[in-house]
């Protein structure tokens, strides 16, 4: 470096105040760039649900319901599994930011630094909606025949988005709790078992009574029943209310938890 470049360097441009919206937009862009760069994770988050769907339809499907329309039954479950799996990478992303020094740089700037988390969540929503679309297209190829009209599709997409947001905020909070990036990855794995204990793959009335009670009352069952009802035009009942309620409850609780964790992790130093 020459003397002139030292002069160029110290001719630093003035700072301007940055609004919340701009900050949020910049962090969303950052997280989207992360998603695109991490090609392996992106491919797996789409390929795994697709493979699971093929496994259920072609390997277990015949035994579970010899009629052959099992594909219609299982697709809503696969969509939610896909959302959960995609959301779990948020925990890793958040933990990565918190354990490397990069968060300290954001925290010493006059911005709302918890927008880092919001950026991860919004990017996760975008990523997961793309993955969901791929899953639905593959499902159509292997014989999924929904009977939904435009309105029902829109309602289903809104419900799926709500679930993605709820579970992503939960994973974001878990990413803040985790002391390492590896630990954050493992939390994601644990939460992925939830769909198996629901009406996603088999009707709950085949389960032992204790298990059945859990399966009937956990958040994923009303979600799946709602999406199934909307896409296949079957009886909805009260399932959509429960589904929306659960999603909002999980989302708000996880957001508050994440905000608290973000603050206390800086205050604890």
């Amino acid at each position, binding site marked *: *470096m020459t*003397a002139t*470049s*030292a*002069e*160029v*360097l*110290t001719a*630093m*441009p*003035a*700072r*301007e*105040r*940055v609004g919340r919206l*701009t*900050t949020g937009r*910049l962090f969303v862009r*950052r997280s989207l*760039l*992360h998603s695109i*760069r*991490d090609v392996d994770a992106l491919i797996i988050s789409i390929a795994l649900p697709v493979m699971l769907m093929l496994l259920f339809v072609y390997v277990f499907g015949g035994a579970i319901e010899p009629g052959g329309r099992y594909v219609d039954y299982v697709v809503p479950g696969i969509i939610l599994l896909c959302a959960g799996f995609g959301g779990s990478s948020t925990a890793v992303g958040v933990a*990565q930011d918190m354990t*490397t*020094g*990069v*968060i*300290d*740089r*954001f*925290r*010493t*700037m*006059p*911005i709302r630094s918890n927008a880092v988390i919001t950026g991860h969540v919004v990017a996760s929503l975008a990523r997961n909606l793309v993955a969901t679309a791929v899953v639905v297209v593959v499902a159509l190829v292997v014989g999924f025949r929904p009977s939904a009209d435009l309105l029902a599709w829109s309602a289903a997409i809104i419900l799926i988005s709500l679930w993605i947001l709820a579970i992503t905020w939960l994973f974001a909070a878990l990413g803040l709790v985790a002391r390492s990036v590896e630990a954050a990855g493992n939390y994601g794995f644990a939460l992925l078992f939830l769909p198996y204990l629901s009406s996603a793959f088999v009707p709950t009335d085949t389960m032992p009574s204790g298990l059945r009670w859990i399966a009937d009352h956990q958040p994923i069952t009303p979600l799946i029943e709602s999406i199934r009802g909307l896409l296949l035009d079957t009886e909805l009942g009260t399932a959509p209310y429960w589904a929306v309620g659960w999603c909002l409850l999980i989302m708000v609780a996880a957001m508050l938890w994440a905000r608290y964790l973000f603050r206390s992790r*800086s*205050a604890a*130093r």
Partner: protein
Amino acid sequence: MDAIEITGVTKSFGDHRVLDGLDLQVRRGDVFALLGPNGAGKTTMITILSTLARPDSGAVRVSGFDVVEQADQVRRVISLTGQHAAVDEMLSGAENLILIGRLNGLTTAAARTRATQLLSAFDLVDAARRPVRTYSGGMRRRLDLALGLVVEAEVIFLDEPTTGLDTRSRQALWAVVAQLARSGVTVLLTTQYLEEADRLADRVAVLHGGRIVAEGTPAELKARVGAEVVEIRADDGTVLAERPVDGSPSSVQRAITELELLIGGGGHVVLRRPTLDDVFLALTEEVAA
């Protein structure tokens, strides 16, 4: 108003008291070096100054703003380059610089221009478009320093800025710090290298056991040790023993006699000016004793 005013700051982690009643004033436009061994509390003080941590007690003001009560105002006037490279691994070097520029309110065009300047100054043009995770340690460090210089700041904190830098980059950084000082920016840097403090700093404070044990210009601190240092060296130049003296013939004579007794003869005598190393050793030994 001083750029930095620290009064009676304490900070403990569990039972371990890292800062133990630290007082310090740094004048506007000074380059101030905080000198101390590992674990002396240098980094803790920097994290408090840069609003990342709160002091348990005491008051800290940067550019007149309280770091706890007015953290946001403080954040508007500071820039921190910490010990661990605070870079986004997934983004490229250029994207890192542009993001920080945009987050500080620069337009996209202005942020790009600034990024180009910094990339060329820190010798990162060839790697500008590569993700940072492919960078070497030195490149990461250079990018980190560049990120601290994207926009203006009244007070710049550099925590061990030259650790892990090669000689060329180290000298480049020294040139930047000197230029910053000329343009009126206050720089507080921490270092374990006395040479660095000696070359760059207008004033130096020695931190030991969570307090400032000495403060002054490098010359003043050296004068505290004595005017001269008597050394006895082996024929190959290694120092066998040394002792600071006030420079009078009798003190030199006494030192030579004592040192000869200590090492039991041999070697030759050299008289030299004290360095900050001598100050540092003398001061930290005083405290330990």
